[in-house]
């Protein structure tokens, strides 16, 4: 007992400097350097990645969205569909909030409705299909949806369950800790907005207590500061290790690079709708991008392994479709187009452009990993097969609206497939643009493929997994065998960490303390 107090005092004195000899002890705290800063602790205010990753430490959801975007039981132990618009969730019994109160259906109802009714509407895209939530008994909840919604489980997994006592609490009550009580693996200790959040271990966590006695999340959006904190041993694990820090980390004996694939898919979008495209000058005055052979030749001309290797510096993984193997909707029937500049030139000639054409390609600068450099490399490769290419990169604020509107001929696009299946990217970037239905909002190439729209509509209302999976795969096949988009790569999640910890990166890039394990 005395010893434990002494140890705590020692930790307080030493701050967060870890002593290797104590690394295996039970009283080890963990410090995570986050690359983004949450706006608030209120888990229903704003659905951005830093907020959701932070709230995940204190609160649980009914469904646990795993690192590979699968749905696993959490506060709900099982679920089923009663009919296409009614879902029944069985709740876990015996779970307690950090303040000792019991968890039951009231908390679920309060949380789901609070997320839906919040004036900020931060979670609208997840709550919009929820028509009502009712309790059948204290541990059974029925969720009614407006239309059959196959993504309901994914949506529900994003809504944290707070105590019903806090359903009317304002944002401040979460930030000052009054309502920062959840059922999660860690409980609130202190919060300094924009700087750090400290948490204590919840020894009664239903899935077993965490290895770490406490967790400090430090918000360090500046690349240099984050890297410096890792190098100086202040922090155990940092998000988004800057590319220029990789060599430093590699050469250090105590540090390691943790590399995993994210669900962020990077592609080139093409103007496939206009007869004359604004940034293309072809000898015949037409828009060559409408010809699938031209698009194919362009993809063949891009040496994607070289881009991943040399430009991305292994911060990416080659992609052929929206999602990697293991995710819903990945199809083996998508043709893999390899690099072959000679064949690309021949195919371009066959399409009627033996002398190529002139083209300006556009992209953002500094928004995605090495975006401007990838685009320049692509420009080089297009030029090699006779497509005289100019590269324009713009700051994200100027680029984001323009590309979505369809201002460009060939543009750099990217989509984080957080739902882990293919309807989510298809709705946004491939489906025919339709303001009323909310489809094709980021379809900057004016793609309109009635077959894709039809399959998409079907997939979006099919609940049975076995029927849905072939539809999801069909979306991949139709998008990428027609080359409506030219796939480039998936961004990798790159973390820097001490060798004393082990972590498997998640597709959504969250760094969750509960999933960080001591090494060996």
């Amino acid at each position, binding site marked *: 007992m005395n010893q434990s107090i002494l140890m705590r005092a020692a930790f307080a004195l030493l701050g967060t400097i870890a002593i290797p000899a104590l690394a295996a002890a039970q009283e080890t705290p963990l410090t995570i350097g986050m690359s983004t800063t949450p706006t608030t602790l209120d888990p229903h205010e704003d659905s951005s990645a830093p907020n959701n990753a932070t709230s995940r430490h204190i609160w649980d959801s009914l469904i646990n969205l795993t690192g590979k975007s699968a749905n696993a039981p959490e506060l709900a132990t099982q679920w089923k569909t009663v009919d296409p618009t009614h879902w029944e969730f069985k709740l876990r019994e015996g779970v307690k909030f950090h303040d000792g109160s019991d968890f039951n259906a009231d908390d679920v109802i309060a949380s789901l409705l609070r997320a839906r009714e919040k004036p900020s509407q931060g979670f609208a895209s997840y709550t919009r299909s929820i028509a009502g939530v009712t309790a059948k008994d204290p541990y059974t909840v029925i969720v009614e949806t407006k239309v059959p919604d196959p993504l309901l489980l994914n949506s529900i997994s994003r809504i944290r369950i707070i105590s019903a006592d806090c359903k009317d609490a304002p944002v401040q009550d979460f930030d000052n800790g009054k309502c920062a009580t959840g059922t999660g693996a860690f409980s609130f200790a202190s919060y300094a907005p924009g700087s750090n959040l400290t948490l204590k271990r919840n020894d009664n966590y239903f899935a077993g207590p965490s290895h770490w006695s406490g967790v400090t999340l430090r918000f360090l959006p500046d690349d240099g500061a984050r890297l410096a904190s890792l190098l100086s041993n202040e922090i155990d694990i940092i998000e988004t290790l800057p590319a*220029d820090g*990789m*060599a430093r980390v590699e050469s250090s004996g105590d540090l390691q690079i943790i590399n995993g694939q994210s669900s962020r898919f990077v592609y080139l979008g093409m103007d496939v709708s206009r007869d004359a495209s604004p940034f293309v000058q072809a000898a015949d005055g037409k828009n060559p991008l409408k010809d699938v052979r031209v698009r194919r030749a362009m993809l063949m001309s891009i040496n994607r392994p070289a881009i991943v290797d*040399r430009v991305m510096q292994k911060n990416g993984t080659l992609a052929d479709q929206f999602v990697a193997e293991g995710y819903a909707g990945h199809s083996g029937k998508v043709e893999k187009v390899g690099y072959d500049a000679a064949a690309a030139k021949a195919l371009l000639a066959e399409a009627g452009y033996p002398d190529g054409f002139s083209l300006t390609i556009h992209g953002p*600068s500094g928004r995605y990993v090495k975006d401007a450099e990838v685009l*320049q490399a692509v420009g080089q490769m297009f*030029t090699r097969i006779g497509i005289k290419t100019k590269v*324009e990169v*713009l*700051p994200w604020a100027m680029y984001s609206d323009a590309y979505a509107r369809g201002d460009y001929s060939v543009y750099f696009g990217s989509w984080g497939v957080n739902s882990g299946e293919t309807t989510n990217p298809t709705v946004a970037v491939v489906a025919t643009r339709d303001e009323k239905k909310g489809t094709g909002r980021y379809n900057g190439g004016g793609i309109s493929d009635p077959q894709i729209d039809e399959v998409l509509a079907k997939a979006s209302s099919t609940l049975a997994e076995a029927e849905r999976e072939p539809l999801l795969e069909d979306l991949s096949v139709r998008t990428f065998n027609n080359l409506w988009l030219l796939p480039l790569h998936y961004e990798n999640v790159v973390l820097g960490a001490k060798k004393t910890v082990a972590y498997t990166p998640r597709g959504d890039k969250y760094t969750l303390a509960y999933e960080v394990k001591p090494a060996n």
Partner: protein
Amino acid sequence: MTELEDTTIAASERGRLRKGITDFFASPVAATGFVTLIIICGLALLAPWISPQNPYDLMQLDIMDGRLAPGSESMSGLVYHLGTDSQGRDILSGILYGLRTSLIVGVLSAFAAAIIGTTIGLIAAYRGRRTETIIMRLVDLQLSLPTILMALMMLAILGKGVMNVVIALIIAEWATYARTVRGIALVEREKEYIEAARMLRLPGWRILFRHLLPNCLAPVIVIATMQVARAIGLEATLSFLGLGASVTEPSLGMLISSGYQYLLTGLYWISFFPGIALLITIVAINLVGDRLRDVLNPRSMS
């Protein structure tokens, strides 16, 4: 009589010029700056013939040659004396071509701003009254905005591109000239020769440009020289922020910015050499400008 007068005036003018040149080169520092500047301009002019590679031609670049250290050899046998950037662009060629962009932007914007600013300043001083008030409040407004902010705003409106940078810099810089010229012109306006010209009922534009202007020109030349250096620096800043030249046709600022993220990794050459080139250019121009100010300013000559 008049012929005689003309020749004496011409002779004294020639004498003044000769004296000016002698004075200028009396300072070895200024002479060094001047020679350096001439060399830099020569290199920039001759870039297409002397640089090992055309860094703007994507055909000649190969990302497989990216980030090579100074002195490395490419597969085609080309030696990269100052290394390559991440796109496989030869840094030496990049600097030579980048100097062209930087100098064009600097000279064009400084002198265009000088012409516009001087004209406006002269008009303000000569016309006086409401014209002057309006113009000078506009100048105050302009000078109260930070130049870089002004240029950023202009580029957000105009879009990217070298010519747009020039326009943005002109708009951001004319006010300095207007203010200076007005100050001097206000003094000159009261002098007898202007009064005499007025008495002769010479047209306003003639008094302005034939009589007033030549006597206000010395400080304008000095400011313009300094502004060339400033404009080059500003262009580099704008390019560094991603708003200047096109990424495939990098200026010095763009090269520095693309190498900046590699500095911590030890790939120093991508930023370092263009940075040195920029530094030498700006210092050389400033040395020349400083000396010009000393030579052309009658008060500092006594």
